[in-house]
Every structure is written in C-alpha cells, then in structure tokens.
C-alpha cells in the first residue's frame, strides 16, 4: 500500500515546511523559497509566511502537496527486542534458570557527555515513568559509572568487575559527536580483542537499533526505552551465546 501525507483528503500529499534561506526577505527570497520547495518535489507550493531574520537571512513557512509516497508494506522496523519483553520477574527468572548467577552490567555516559538522566532512568533503582531500573533486578549486579566516562576507563572497569554487558548512553549529538564516541568504544574493544567478551548496547534520544548495529553494537535503544527492554535483550543475547558456544 502506497501511503502519502494527509492534509484533509486521502493522498492529498500535504506537508508543512519551515526553513531559513541565506538571502534577504522580499519577493525574490519568496520566489526562491517557492522554487526550492518545488525542487523538493512539491506542487501547489504556497509560501504562506516570510520574515527577515537579519540583513542576509530570511525565514519561510511553506505548504505544498507531494506525489511522493512510500510503500507501507515494505517498511520493517528492527527493534532490539521483539514482541516479547520480559517483566522484571520474568527477567530474574530467566537469569536464574539459564545462568544460576547474577549477570553483571556496567553502564556509563561516555566521552564528555554528562546527560545522566537517560542512563539513570535505565539503571537506577527508581527507574523512570513507573518502570523500575536494572539495579532493582534480583538477577543483575549493576554498576552505573555516571557522567563523562572515557571509553577506555569504561572497558577497564568492565574487565575489573567481570561484566557481561556494557551499556553506554550518548545524548549530545551535535556534529555527530555521538557517532565518534560510539565508534571509538567499539574500536578500542576490538583493538584489545574484547569485542566478543561483552554484550554492548548503546542508548540515547537519537539512537536507534539500526544505527547502533551499524556502528558495531549488539543493539541500540532510543527514546521511550525502559530497563525491561535492555534487560530482555541482554538476557536473550547471553542465552543465545551460551547455546552457540
């Protein structure tokens, strides 16, 4: 099924856009904005608003209709966890059953990132939005190293406590600094021949499973993730590894 944006009629393709152009406001700027929007594939383009931002910059609000659509049936989302997400109790039971020991999880906000609220939401006792954090899981032994942890320190620590899984959070994404940080962690692990030793997960507002896997992680967790998601992933992954080894 091909789907298109919907304004008030099926397939009308209506979209709202706003953007700035590095030119002065005026008829020429508006015409440039209109042609630009058309070049994106829109028809019926209306530059409904323009305003100067400074001598050389102007902002536009545009509406247009596009014939561009996508085939909804071909869309596949690969979340880290499938349909089945363990409750805390189920997670603990699974750990007891398959490992007979606590699994060790080390987490941190790496690089210069100090946005700990996200990793705390996942790891701390209290959790987030009425979802308990990993610390409360009987089957897990957790270490939350907090903010601004260098990647090599994180690895050292994971070795020290004999971790099963490493969790990293990256919130600042300006200039793709999260990509650099995440890539560095994987490279360091590989250089030290440790990549296979840990389940390694990334998380953060702008991090999806797809991106994380591309960067060499086992999984990624974005906005709206809770402890049970990453717990489920780690446990299942470790069971799978145990079975294949």
């Amino acid at each position: 099924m091909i789907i298109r944006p919907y304004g008030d009629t099926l397939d009308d393709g209506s979209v709202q856009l706003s953007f700035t152009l590095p030119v002065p406001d005026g008829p020429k700027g508006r015409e440039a904005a209109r042609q630009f929007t058309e070049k994106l594939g829109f028809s019926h383009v209306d530059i409904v608003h323009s305003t100067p931002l400074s001598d050389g910059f102007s902002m536009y609000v545009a509406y247009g209709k596009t014939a561009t659509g996508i085939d909804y049936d071909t869309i596949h989302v690969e979340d880290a966890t499938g349909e089945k997400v363990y409750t805390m109790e189920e997670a603990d039971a699974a750990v007891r059953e398959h490992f007979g020991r606590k699994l060790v999880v080390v987490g941190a906000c790496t690089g210069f990132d100090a946005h700990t609220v996200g990793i705390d939401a996942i790891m701390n006792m209290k959790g987030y939005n009425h979802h308990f954090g990993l610390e409360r899981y009987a089957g897990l032994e957790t270490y939350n190293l907090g903010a601004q942890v260098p990647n090599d320190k994180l690895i050292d620590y994971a070795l020290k406590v004999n971790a099963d899984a490493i969790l990293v959070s990256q919130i600042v994404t300006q200039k793709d600094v999260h990509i650099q940080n995440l890539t560095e962690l994987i490279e360091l692990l590989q250089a030290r021949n440790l990549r296979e030793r840990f389940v390694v997960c990334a998380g953060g507002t702008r991090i999806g499973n797809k991106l994380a896997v591309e960067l060499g992680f086992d999984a990624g967790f974005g906005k709206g993730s809770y402890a049970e998601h990453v717990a489920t992933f780690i446990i299942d992954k470790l069971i799978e590894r145990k079975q294949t080894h």
Partner: protein
Amino acid sequence: METKLGLSEERIQKARELAARIVEPVMAFVAEHTSVTVERATLRLAGADGADADGVPVPNLVVDQCKGLLENGALIYYVNALVRTGETVQGLNRLIAGGLNVASLPLGDRAALEAKARTLVEAFAARVKANRGHRDAKLEAYKGRNHSPLLYVIVATGNIYEDRKQAVAAAEQGADVIAVIRTTAQSLLDYVPYGPTTEGFGGTYATQENFRIMREALDEVVDRQGRYILLTNYCSGLCMPEIAAMGALERLDMMLNDSMYGILFRDINMYRTFVDQKFSRMINAYAGIIINTGEDNYLTTSDAVEKAYTVLASQFLNERFAYAAGLPARLMGLGHAFEMDPTLKNGFLLELAQAQMAREIFPEAPLKYMPPTKFMTGDIFKGLAMNSMFNFVSKLTGQGIHLLGMLTEAIHTPFMMDRFLALDNAKHVMNTMEGLADEIEFKRDGVIATRARKVLEETVEFLESIDRIGLMPAIAQGHFADIKRPADLGKGLDGLQKKGPDYFNPFEAYLKNELNLAD
C-alpha cells in the same frame, strides 16, 4: 456569580430595558408575517422531505405550488393531500416528487384536516422529545466528562464522508463540539439540498442526510469515549427555519443563529430575516438546541477595540430576540471574539475585560467565544501563541463554548493535524492554569475594570440612539457594522408573506404553547 469588575447593575438593567424596547416593534411585525422558508420548515416538521428529479426539494415544490395561497400557510394543502390520497407522509412525498400538485386538490373538511395535522404535530413532538431525552440522558450519564469551556472545532472538507472521518478523529482527540461548516454561499440558496453531498467549497452542504450521517458517527464516539459530543450547524441564511427543523429532527445540539447576521453580512432582507429568525428560534428552543450568535462578525471588518460596544449591544439584542422566541438563557450561546491586534500593547487586558464583562452580564448564558482570525497570518508559530493567549482568557473568564483557533487560520480550512494541535494546545493551557480564575481579583480602578465600564457605557449610549431611531431604520442607515441595508432591499423579500385570517400553522401554535409564548 462573583463580580470581579464591579459593573453597575443599574446600567446593565438600563441596557436590557432598551433592548426590550428596541425589539418590541420588530416582534409586532413578525407576528403578522410568515415566509416561504417558514412554510417549508413547517412542512419539514410535518414530514415533508425528498426531492424531485431535478433536485428540487419537496418542501419547495409544495410552497411553489401554493403561490398566491400562502397567506393561509402551506401546511393545510399538504395535510389535505395526505387526507385526499390516504398516503403516508413518505408516500405523499414520493407523489409530490413525482409531480403531484397539492394545491390543485380541493380542500377537505377543516376539522378533519386539523385532526390530521394534530397527529403530525404529535409525531413531531414525540420525535423531538425523544431527541431531547436521548441528549439529556447521555449528558447525565457522562456528566463531568466534557471540557469547560466546551472545546468546539469545525470540519470543512466539503465532503461529508471526509468530514465524518475528521469529526470522529477530533472527537477522539477531545473535542466536545463538532461544527460542520457550510459550503460557501449555501446561505443564499433558497432551498436546502437533499441527500448526502461530497462537493462543497470551504464547507459542506447542510442537508438532512448529512446531519444524520454525522450524528450517527458521533453517537458512536459518544459511548466509546463516555463523553457527549455536540453537533452544530448553521441555522442562518435564506433557509434558517428549515435548518432549525432539520436540526430538531436529527438531534443537532447547537446552531449558529443570529438575529441580524443575515441582514448585515449576507444582504438578506431585514423583514424576511426577522420573521425567519423568530420561527427558527422557537424550534431551537423546543428542541433544546443552543444557539450561537454571530457577534464575532462585527469584528472581522471593524476594529475590536473601537467597536467593542457593538458586540455588547448585539448581545443584548440577541438576548432579547431569543427570550421573545422562548429560548431560556441557558440556550443562549451569545457570541464574542478575541480579535484585537496582537501588536497592541495591553491588548490582552482589553480582551480579558471584554470576556469577563460578557461573563458577568450574562451569567447564565453559555457564551460562545470565537478565536483570533483577522490577525492570523501565515506565521503558524505566532498564530499558535495567539491561540494560546485566547485559550487562556477563555478559561480565566469562564466562557461556555470555546471555538478553537487554528494555527493555519490564514491558510486553509483545517487539516486534521491542525485541529489536533488546537485541541492539544487548549487542553494543555486550560489544564495548567485551571483554577486561576478563583485566585485573582482585578483592581477596581485598573485598566481592565475601567475598560469594561467604558464599553458598557458606550453600549448604553448606542442602544439609546437605536431606540430613538428604531431598529429597522437604524440598520438602514448603517448604524450596525457600517453597513447600510434599506428595509425594502436585500435578498428574499419576495418570499415574505403577510398572514391571512385563515393562516394555519398548528406547529407554530404548538411551539408557542410549549414555550409559553403569548400569541
């Protein structure tokens, strides 16, 4: 109601007296007249419906057939035809659509006709009472589930089936009231189209079938959401009373209906308008339908600061006209609007004054508050902020019916997402500042209280001048909205009819009786 403004009770009383005096002679004129659409409305109440092959509705066919006989009312001929043919109402409608001329049949025994007519009145009364009963029961069952003020949004795709989708979505998103906007210029059609429609511009035809389709769709949401959803349409234009009739039959809950809107803004003849208006309002009153008056329209062309008094004056007149048609205060959605220039320093204070003033002067009326439109531009971001301020004032002053502003007001009739954003914004703003009204007092000599007193005073002066001139001459001379509408010009005058001595309208009589109106 606690007063925050300290308005003079005496001046309010004075304005009400003036309004009563102004309206009185108009009602005297109205009492002696009917119109083609009053007759068609009466026929509709009796059950006339359907259309011929050219799409001419049965009520129009009947009234056209009665040309020259209309001083007697059209109903008698329709009832006579029922008796003569022995048909059911549906059967007769089919015959008329097929070509039967009811006026060509010789009139039968008056008593028999009256008896037959009584059964039609009873059927009508039963249907409308059931509608009221249903509405009241749902409102009772889902009490406390509607927002306060009621959140009111419009749908206007032109296609009733698209409208339905949008309306259901809006209701699920939290709307309490859905208005189906009429297509451009339907108000100037001297008939109501028949059946479901899918082609309109800037709105969708008001037809009885469209009403039914929408009512049915919303009723489903009502029980799913546990919230009664009010349905609204436009009871104005050349078919005002017919729409009232359709609304009563299909359980609409609100109707846009103003005493002078058609005259001023649609150039409809004033005699015709006043006659149609009275009958419409009687039907609305009986059906428990809240009217929404159109004071906002004064501000789409005039300045909201300068002409604030025209809004209040119109509210007093609308109130008086409504009482005269049997509408209780709780069905009077008197209108006003948030239409001041957003660049005006202090503008928010003046808006607050106006809204609070309306609230204190009409404590029982579910005031209908209209959003910024005139100063909305393509700047959807500023538009959203203007709407936020509007939502704020509405909640703070305890308005009753709150028409949500759309951030795309200056651009297009609402997209589904525009409506969602409006609902979301209203819920957010009104929830976060819930209770503020009970917290604050206005200083007695402040800008707000002073402004309200001033507008009230100007209103009294304005009504005094109208009282001196007379309402109809004042309209003719351009005292309202700077628009001159001579009494003998304007659309629809030829559809006006003085009632004859044998004028027959048991529906009118029934309504008057039920509404405790003098004859």
